[in-house]
């Protein structure tokens, strides 16, 4: 996808043909415009099937959730109107606040780390033709293809006390570093984060490699003629050239971190204690286990708004800079 259609967020102020208040559109102009207007409705018609689908699958449940969030409801009995009380949980419920903190940590592992690593690998790969680069790229992309549940089960095994990771550490004489990764209050969250890094790293790298290929070679040549160091070259040419890809990578990985559920659900159930809970996990627990559909819906609404804000914010920032 491209992020180049800057017109959306900053619509042209001038040149609204005939629409300015106080100016009477002349008849000829109206006549001239009418075919275009019809064209617009035809456009809507083309859009209708997709729009209907979108309304049914996304918008209706969204409104429904927003509505549910105003009630205290177990999902089956008579609901009670509670206004915004369910949203107050974000301030008063220590579990929910802790979960938000955990998401902050996960964003580092799901978004920042993979992007830094991805940029690094991409700049290495694209600087010169490495033998077997294609194989390398595919291998790193594989985690993106695997279902999260499978990923979680495999890593759960890798992390077991007598599992491969601890065995490797012991074999290297680093036995002191061996941990009960997912069972340790301190290490469980970073251990989950590493799984996230493993998953999104390949994706970021592929994105950046393909983005780097579209940077004109002349820019690199010019930089080299000017005597730029590889580091300088990276910051002056590669990084600015990858801005659209960075926007996509950030948006997708940050929203993924915000929504983290399956990984945590399979690997730790939010434990030990509540050291790896995420808002989405609490949402599931409240909606299906507790059952407290109202406060689950409140979490869902806040998550949706947060994701939307992240997306819009990133789009704005990258657009302004370009």
């Amino acid at each position, binding site marked *: 996808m491209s992020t180049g259609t800057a017109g959306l967020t900053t619509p042209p102020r001038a040149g609204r043909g005939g629409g300015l208040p106080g100016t009477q559109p002349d008849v000829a102009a109206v006549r001239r415009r009418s075919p275009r207007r019809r064209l617009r409705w035809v456009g809507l018609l083309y859009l209708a099937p997709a729009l209907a689908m979108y309304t049914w699958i996304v918008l209706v449940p969204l409104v429904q959730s927003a*509505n549910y969030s105003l009630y205290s409801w177990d999902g089956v009995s008579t609901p009670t109107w509670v206004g915004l009380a369910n949203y107050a949980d974000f301030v008063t419920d220590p579990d929910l606040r802790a979960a938000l903190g955990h998401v902050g940590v996960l964003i580092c592992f799901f978004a920042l780390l993979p992007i830094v690593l991805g940029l690094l690998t991409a700049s290495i790969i694209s600087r010169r033709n490495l033998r077997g680069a294609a194989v390398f790229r595919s291998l790193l992309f594989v985690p993106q293809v695997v279902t999260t549940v499978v990923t979680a089960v495999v890593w759960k095994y890798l992390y077991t006390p007598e599992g491969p990771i601890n065995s490797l550490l012991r074999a290297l004489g680093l036995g002191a570093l061996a941990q009960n990764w997912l069972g340790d209050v301190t290490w469980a969250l970073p251990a989950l984060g590493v799984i996230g890094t493993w998953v999104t790293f390949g994706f970021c790298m592929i994105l950046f490699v393909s983005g780097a290929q579209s940077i004109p070679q002349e820019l690199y040549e010019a930089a080299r003629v000017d005597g730029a160091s590889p580091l300088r070259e990276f910051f002056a040419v590669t990084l600015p050239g990858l801005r659209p890809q960075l926007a996509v990578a950030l948006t997708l990985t940050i929203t993924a971190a915000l929504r983290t559920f399956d990984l945590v659900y399979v690997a730790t159930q939010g434990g030990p204690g509540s050291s790896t809970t995420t808002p989405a996990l609490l949402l599931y627990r409240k909606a299906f286990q507790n059952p407290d559909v109202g406060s689950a819906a409140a979490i869902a609404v806040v998550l949706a708004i947060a994701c939307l804000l992240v997306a819009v914010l990133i789009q704005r920032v990258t657009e302004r800079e370009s």
Partner: protein
Amino acid sequence: MVWSTLVFSDRGLLVPTRESSVSSLKVRLAAALALPLALVATACAPKAANTAGGNAQPSAVSSDVASAGPVTLKFLDFEEGPDATYIKKAIAGFEQQYPNVKIERTEQSFDQVMSTLNLRLADPDGPDVATINNGWQSMGTLSKAGLILNLDKYAELYGWRDQMSQTMQRQLEFTPDGTKMGEGSLYGTPGARLTTVGLYYNKKLLDEAGVAVPTTFADFESALAAVKAKGETPIALGTQEKTYATNPLFAVQALLGKPQAINDFVYGAGGTTLEQTGLGTAAAKLQEWEKAGYLNSGYNGLDFDGGKKVFTDGKAAFHFDYSGALVGTGADDTEFGRIQLPSTDGGTQTSVGAASAVFGISAKTPHPDAAAAFLNYLGSQPMNDLSVQSGYLPIRPSTEAVKPGTVFADEVAGAAAVTEDDGFLPFFDWASPEMLDVIGGQVQLILAGRSTPETLVTDGQKSYDEAAAKRG
């Protein structure tokens, strides 16, 4: 969702003509969407699934199923693995007895069934019969909402209450107004299989440590010390999953706590605090064992089955588990035993124990009589005998032969002793919907030295009080 929003706005959705500014397009689009959304908002206000509430039951009941013509019952259950083999045999037996009834079975994991059951039973095309769970979370919600039938009329018709002990009946009762558990009407039947929480031991390791099979809690603790002194691991656990981290705690609570207080607290009889149930004492005991190095190394990084494997591999002397723990593990059942210890409070035989699955009937079923006949069959004497043949504890006494010297023989003898004293305790987490999560998390933290038994008591009491306040 956000992904689609991005594509949506990015592509400019309708390629705007030069005159039509994007913002006016947005306004139109918003206007076009506003009306349907407003309609949706008014139409989708949450509502109760059934206004009958806890009194949902047919006006007339009959045990005459044979003359009802061809009937198909949809049956949703969480019986997996060896349990599924049992339930399939039960269904075959029922269909043979009533050739006009066909059972259409759907099998899913416990978590899957539990997380979707409320919605499925609200659906007129949902299951006719389903496995439900005791406690407020499942049975309490379903009975109050009128999604499962009040079974009082069928219980009278078939004499179900006469087949059950007092403690068993109490586990299946709610008041029709949904405010109390442990009294009122029956909303489920227990089938023919019992699950108890108990203590397994490795015969060889106890021999090597030179200790006899413990008969009291004090014996048990000195056995732990003896095994440890021998350089072996006393207890095998796997506490990485919160749900199952509660298992050893409940087992120890049954021995150290006050049985009466546990019953009163769980059923909300009033006037009993969590403190009085002995849960804190049990947690302190687990903590003490952890500090003494009695637990297998890496227990906090192992899931429940991982902990069990340490035990069945012969690497630990004791292990807390549900009855039937060794069925299907391939372990030699003569190498292990199970101990039923008396309560330290009064000396009666007590154990956490309940029906391994509770069966309920959907309030929306068109065939309540056939469904009730199926429930009756699942709890019948032949089914109790089949339980024993399959290596599971029966709910009613069975005359089926049990091979002596096996783990199963110990399990049967233990359950019989507890039945004798009517000492079965409810699972403690039935007390409030979030109790399992709260306690499981606290067990993990206490063993890690990050929390205290006092905090467990405070947090558990808080969850209990909040849930009670919500019920009104």
